[in-house]
């Protein structure tokens, strides 16, 4: 694998680089190789694939800023094809997860039985190509009148996987999505060209879009997000170019891929309302519903009309800022390049018409996504529900590229490389249990045994950082026109990181007992890791007699929030508290932490599910 990657890295530059730039690249590549060998000989064990990936990042820098570069959408697609081919391996080295094995199961049913009934697939689950022998029908999966067991997933996506699956099983199915990734890259680059983005900006934006998260991760996994993004771009391109055949077909495929994309169809319909073709679009939107009514008996599949009713305004704010800032599932931490697309919205009139089209068409979809509990994407790699929007945000980012300070761009590049490498090296970490922590926070919390996760904004379990982050984001968007020098911006970020590090090592005011900084001696996570719709529960840690937890705490009175069926007697560094039985309702108890620093909370008898412990002045503030 490593040698084929090296050969690919040697050949890829021939696609785009020419003359002196090509020669300089080869000298640089040789220097990187020698440098890596020196480091390896010194015992610095860097994975060789990581070295190749870093060398590829340098190659992309050559593409972005090189003098002799021959760039086009087709060349970009060719590069993307080679890279996605190599990403399939790392992405499938652990069993596929989330909805992926179910999509594959439907494909297997289509291939072997020519139907969508998965009952026999579940009975013979040992033979699924996903290797997931633990699969069972998901909660709410439709059941036919004769006991047929359908999947909640729409069938078109599984149908698309059939040719690849027939050729090479799971790998072939993933390769099919990679092919859609290639098409997405090509379409997006062509679209950016059509919208008047200059060649130098196109070259700079291309690697951040194609090889950054979330497109990189979804281009080699079995989710319909990348094909949907391709269809959305094609629909927008077709509309902008007044080519009805293109956008009608793309829109039709889009709504068949996933019913939720009907909301995008309605958005596009609204944009074309004055045209006769609105009727055709309406027909396209209704078609999948008719199809679903025939197959599963419900035009909304597993959803209901009730989900379309407005909910509490606070949920919209939570979803909005969460999608932007959440440490585990927000654009700022998971795909920072696309923040530039958000920034472009503030310069609305200067942005290309295609960008405005894309944003307006997706507004209704976003509006219905924001208040839902699963705005994070649920059990999937981050930003699942807005992957389709990434080409639009990339266009926005490209339109403001020259307005953004180089320092900000540099920080975005560094962070993007880090997130991409982390995702490729540890693909299982792309899935998160949505408990309010995130990968970096958990890692640092484990390392320092202090609550580092609270330094990252969480809108799953709203924390102080979320409030501060939201205010800061608004301030940044308002102040963005001031053109702060890059060195000032970078030093401010450095100060924020360092200050966060200092604060994170101090005891927190709220202790979430399931978090990584808590040392668990016995007991169990609640709800268990793979619980369905886990994000809907209040997380916690279940203690039985003699189990204990230790953590950093502040001295003084705290409020403990817990659930206990049989009741429990606990002690915190010797200070005993009796927790009365409260059935399945959360209750509070007053507890006094005898000293500041590391304390041990032990369950002496009974059993209790401990949710969290909050400083009393914090509780009073909330109540006031």
């Amino acid at each position, binding site marked *: 694998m490593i040698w084929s990657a090296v050969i690919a890295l040697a050949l890829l530059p021939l696609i785009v680089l020419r003359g002196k730039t090509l020669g300089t690249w080869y*000298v640089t590549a040789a*220097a990187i190789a*020698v440098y890596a060998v*020196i480091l390896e000989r010194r015992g610095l064990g860097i994975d060789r694939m990581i070295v190749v990936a870093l060398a590829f990042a340098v190659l992309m820098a050559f593409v972005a800023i090189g003098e002799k570069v021959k760039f086009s959408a087709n060349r970009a697609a060719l590069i993307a094809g080679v890279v996605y081919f190599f990403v399939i391996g790392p992405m499938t080295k652990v069993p596929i997860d989330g909805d992926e094995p179910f999509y594959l199961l439907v494909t297997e049913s289509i291939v072997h039985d020519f139907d969508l009934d998965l009952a026999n697939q579940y009975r013979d689950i040992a033979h699924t190509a996903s290797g997931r022998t633990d699969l069972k029908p998901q909660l709410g999966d439709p059941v036919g009148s004769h006991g047929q067991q359908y999947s909640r997933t729409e069938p078109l996506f599984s149908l698309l996987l059939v040719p690849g699956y027939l050729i090479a099983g799971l790998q072939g199915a993933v390769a099919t999505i990679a092919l859609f990734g290639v098409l997405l890259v090509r379409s997006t680059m062509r679209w950016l060209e059509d919208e008047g983005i200059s060649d130098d900006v196109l070259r700079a934006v291309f690697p951040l879009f194609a090889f950054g998260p979330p497109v990189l991760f979804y281009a080699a996994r079995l989710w319909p997000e990348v094909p949907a993004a391709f269809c959305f771009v094609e629909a927008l391109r077709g509309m902008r170019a007044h080519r009805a055949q293109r956008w009608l077909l793309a829109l039709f495929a889009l709504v068949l891929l996933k019913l939720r994309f009907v909301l995008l169809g309605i958005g596009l319909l609204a944009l074309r309302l004055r045209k006769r073709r609105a009727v055709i679009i309406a027909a396209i939107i209704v078609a999948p519903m008719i199809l679903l009514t025939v197959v599963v008996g419900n035009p909304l599949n597993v959803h209901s009309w009730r989900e379309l009713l407005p909910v509490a305004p606070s949920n919209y704010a939570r979803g909005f800022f969460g999608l932007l800032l959440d440490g585990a599932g927000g654009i700022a931490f998971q795909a920072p390049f696309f923040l530039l697309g958000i920034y472009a919205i503030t310069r609305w009139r200067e942005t290309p018409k295609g960008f405005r089209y894309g944003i307006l068409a997706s507004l209704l979809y976003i509006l219905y996504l924001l208040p839902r509990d699963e705005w994070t994407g649920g059990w999937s790699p981050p930003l699942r529900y807005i992957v389709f929007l990434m080409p639009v945000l990339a266009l926005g980012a490209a339109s403001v590229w020259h307005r953004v300070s180089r320092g900000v761009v540099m*920080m975005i590049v560094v962070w993007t490389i880090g997130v991409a490498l982390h995702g490729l090296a540890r693909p299982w970490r792309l899935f998160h249990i949505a408990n309010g922590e995130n990968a970096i926070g958990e890692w640092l919390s484990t390392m320092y045994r202090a609550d580092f996760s609270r330094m990252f904004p969480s809108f799953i379990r709203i924390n102080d950082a979320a409030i501060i982050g939201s205010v800061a984001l608004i301030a940044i968007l308002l102040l963005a026109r001031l053109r702060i020098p890059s060195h000032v911006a970078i*030093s401010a970020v*450095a100060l924020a990181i*360092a200050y966060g590090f200092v604060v994170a090592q101090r005891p927190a005011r709220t202790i979430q007992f399931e978090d990584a900084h808590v040392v668990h001696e016995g007991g169990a996570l609640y709800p268990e890791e793979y619980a369905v719709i886990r994000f809907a529960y209040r997380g916690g840690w279940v203690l039985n007699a003699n189990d204990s937890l230790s953590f950093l705490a502040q001295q003084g009175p705290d409020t403990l929030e817990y659930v206990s069926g049989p009741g429990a007697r606990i002690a915190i560094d010797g200070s005993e508290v009796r927790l009365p039985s409260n059935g399945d309702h959360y209750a509070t108890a007053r507890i006094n932490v005898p000293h500041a620093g590391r304390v041990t909370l032990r369950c002496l008898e009974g059993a209790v599910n401990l949710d969290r412990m909050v400083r009393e002045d914090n509780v009073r503030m909330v109540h006031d």
Partner: protein
Amino acid sequence: MKRTLIIAGWLAAAAVSAYACHLAVHYPTPIDRALPFLAAVITLAGAPIAVPLLIAAEIAILDETTRLIAMGIIWSAATAVAAFNPRAAARGYRIAIASLLLLRWIPFENVHLVREIFLLLIAIAIVWLLRGTALAVLVAVVVCLITPALPLRTLALPLAVLFALALIRFFHMPRIALTVPSLFALACILTFFAWSGVVARAFPYFTRPPLGDVRRETVNAALAPSRSITIDVPPDATGLIVSGANVAHLRRGAALGMIEPGAIPIRIGDASDWGYMRRDFFYGGHNPLPRLSAGHLRDYGYVAWVDGAGLVPLPNAKTIRVTADASLPANAALQVEGFALR
């Protein structure tokens, strides 16, 4: 006025970066404690992006060697970025000065201020004579780095180079950039800045596997000339670790002793004087870095050094006899440190 504001902005950024690093310092080594200095220098060198990365390395990497090398990698990458930045004015000078401050000014208490400032001026002159290219930066950094400045007469080396370059410039030497190879060589030097003393005096140490870290069984015997010791060889021994005492003046190939059976000679080049690489003694000595250096990295920054222990192959025997050579000076000794284990 605008220029003053720009300078003030850079100074403010450097100060904020230094303060941020001051907050982030978590480990006690001189390199970690010098983080604020590093932050200010790299910011003023035109690569402030390195500062958040240095802080991240300080926070996230527990292992000392890995952390310090990671900082070196970050510094190298930032230098390369700064060198390629066409907007940065006088970037060659800034990079050369920043590199020398990094390589020679840590730990600060060992800095001979006047001599170091003089060396910086020579470096600036070299960069100017070679027209600010990456090659110019490399030549300036290498020449100034390998100058111990102790004793004072060693400053003759950079002055000689300066004179030669002035002559070459006078005869209209063409501008040679060699950007990528020069930056690569500079990166190799900067990567190990945490032990810049060893980079200056024995760079090949870093291109070899770190034998100093291998598992050992200690013997700790110092043999005066003609004295010998008989020792049992542990079953998993891979070699004998030896060094010399008071032999720094001997040249490569001079005999230190012998291992029996097999009459395996131990010479300068297989092992060296234990403390030959210390900054204060290096200029007066003639020892090279042992072929298979088993020395430990000691101290940090420009006063870092590696002891002269070397790994010598063992004969296929359960017991060996090590004898110090009779020709060694009276006050010299062959030190048998121990066995390297598998």
